[in-house]
């Protein structure tokens, strides 16, 4: 009787040994996937594409490793768990970095927009002082048109900022600043020439 019990026990243990394997770390997989999705939702793929792609690639590596282990008889997921936890942490960092980058761009755009607004006001003041002699009026009319387009651009930048399209706002506001600065230089040169002529 005792022998039968011993044999059954050995059989059960052997069968369990043969058929059993660890389960994949689904909780960690889900957590890493969620962290990656959150980073993407924060705009990491747009604002920090290199960082985001690196984490996404690490996730692909981790998933491949898990499947490779699943293909074997005796899977041990300890390493994969560590890998996934690191991915989760990294994805969280990328998300945080994205928010920082977005805030930096937002601040930069807001500051540049303030500069553009100030430049527009200066340009208008200079326009009033600019000489209207021969050919001057046509040039000033053209500048008035340019300033009107710049004002529209400044409004568009505010709209893009409000809608969170920071990259479009950034290129628009920088182009506007360049234009407003060149108009200012053009007007200052015309006024300086006029003063020089009076001497």
């Amino acid at each position, binding site marked *: 009787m005792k022998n039968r019990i*011993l044999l059954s026990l050995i059989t059960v243990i052997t069968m369990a040994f043969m058929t059993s394997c660890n389960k994949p770390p689904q909780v960690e997989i889900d957590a890493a996937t969620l962290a990656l999705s959150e980073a993407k939702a924060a705009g990491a793929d747009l604002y920090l594409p290199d960082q985001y792609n690196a984490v996404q690639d690490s996730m692909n590596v981790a998933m491949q490793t898990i499947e490779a282990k699943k293909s074997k008889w005796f899977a041990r997921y300890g390493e994969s768990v560590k890998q996934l936890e690191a991915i989760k942490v990294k994805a969280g960092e990328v998300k945080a970095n994205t928010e920082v980058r977005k805030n930096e761009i937002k601040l930069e755009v807001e500051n540049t927009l303030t500069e553009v607004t100030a430049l527009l006001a200066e340009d208008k003041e200079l326009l009033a002082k600019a000489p209207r002699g021969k050919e001057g009026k046509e040039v000033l009319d053209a500048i008035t048109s340019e300033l009107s387009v710049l004002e529209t651009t400044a409004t568009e930048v505010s709209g893009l900022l409000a809608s969170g399209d920071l990259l479009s706002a950034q290129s628009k506001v920088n182009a506007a600043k360049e234009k407003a600065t060149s108009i200012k230089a053009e007007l200052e040169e015309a006024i300086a020439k006029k003063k020089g002529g009076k001497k």
Partner: protein
Amino acid sequence: MTMKRRTKVTIISLSFVLIAATVVFLFVRMAPVPPLEKIEKARIAISEAKKVRADSYAPTLFLESEKLYQSAISKWKAENAKFILKRDFSSIDAIVDLSVSKAKEAKNKALSHSSDLHTSLGATIKSLGRSIEKYDDLISNLPLRNKVVQDYEKGKMLLNEAKYDYKLKNYLVCKKKIDGSSKYLNDSFASVKSYLKDYFTNYSSWTEWNNSTINISKKNKTTALIVDKYAKKCYIYKSGKLKHTFDVELGKNWIGAKLYKGDKATPEGVYHVTKKLQGKKTKYYKALLINYPNQTDKNRFDREKKRGTLSKRAQIGGLIEIHGGGGKGVNWTEGCVALRDSEMDIVFRETDEGTTVTIVGSLLRLSEIVDF
């Protein structure tokens, strides 16, 4: 339990374990192996393609490659869910092979597309810049519709934005802006072209009037005034020889013939001085009243009225003069020709009632003025 019996049990147990271990060993050896290397190759190929922004520059190929990779992983997962000896990874091979080739193709296409965009967008930016240089003066000098000027300014602004994105190598965003800029700029350029081409269809008449005026001046040894509206110049001929050249200012809508009262256009045609005015008789220093409208102007006015292009209330206008008060640097008159007072003195001195005043659109062909 006897010693003999214990030994028997131990032998049976060990045999059982040995058999089990052999079975496991055989299962492990016989179990199908997934194409790990190939899958890894596909992952690396996709990662490399993404580094060169293949997802943007070769999106179709890149997405196909990614889908194939994901499909391989899904199949792998599905096979892994089966009993170890029943797994079959053979179909994954072909899928990952295709994924690798698509990813590599996407990478190459992305590199070549971004390089092509770098070259073509750079060239377009330069070309649009050159066009702007060419059209800048035209657009600021011609009495164009507000929309044309606004389109032109919007096009210039978008071009500036495109230049910024070009510097940042955001070629696709840059291209979008270049396309928008080109549309605005080309629309405004097309308007300017057609506007000037329409205007210059009268060039042969202008040449004829000019030649005939100079010939008559030469033949009759008389003085004649020729006004070139496009060049904003007034020429004084005496006995067929050019004696003076002065700058002039015209009506605000100086392009085209004068059609009706209040259109702020300067008339075109062959006229003569009907009255010389100075002192309190004119508010512009000195003036030469000309015989606008002449018969040609009257005929045209009647024709346009009949056609309905002019309102029934429209009047033909009059009191067109060559007068002083100029030098403002802008076309400001109601349709008259304005000169600086000092130059008006000379014109006034050199002319009499009856002096021919020929006003033409341009003495130069359009092709001599601007190279479209």
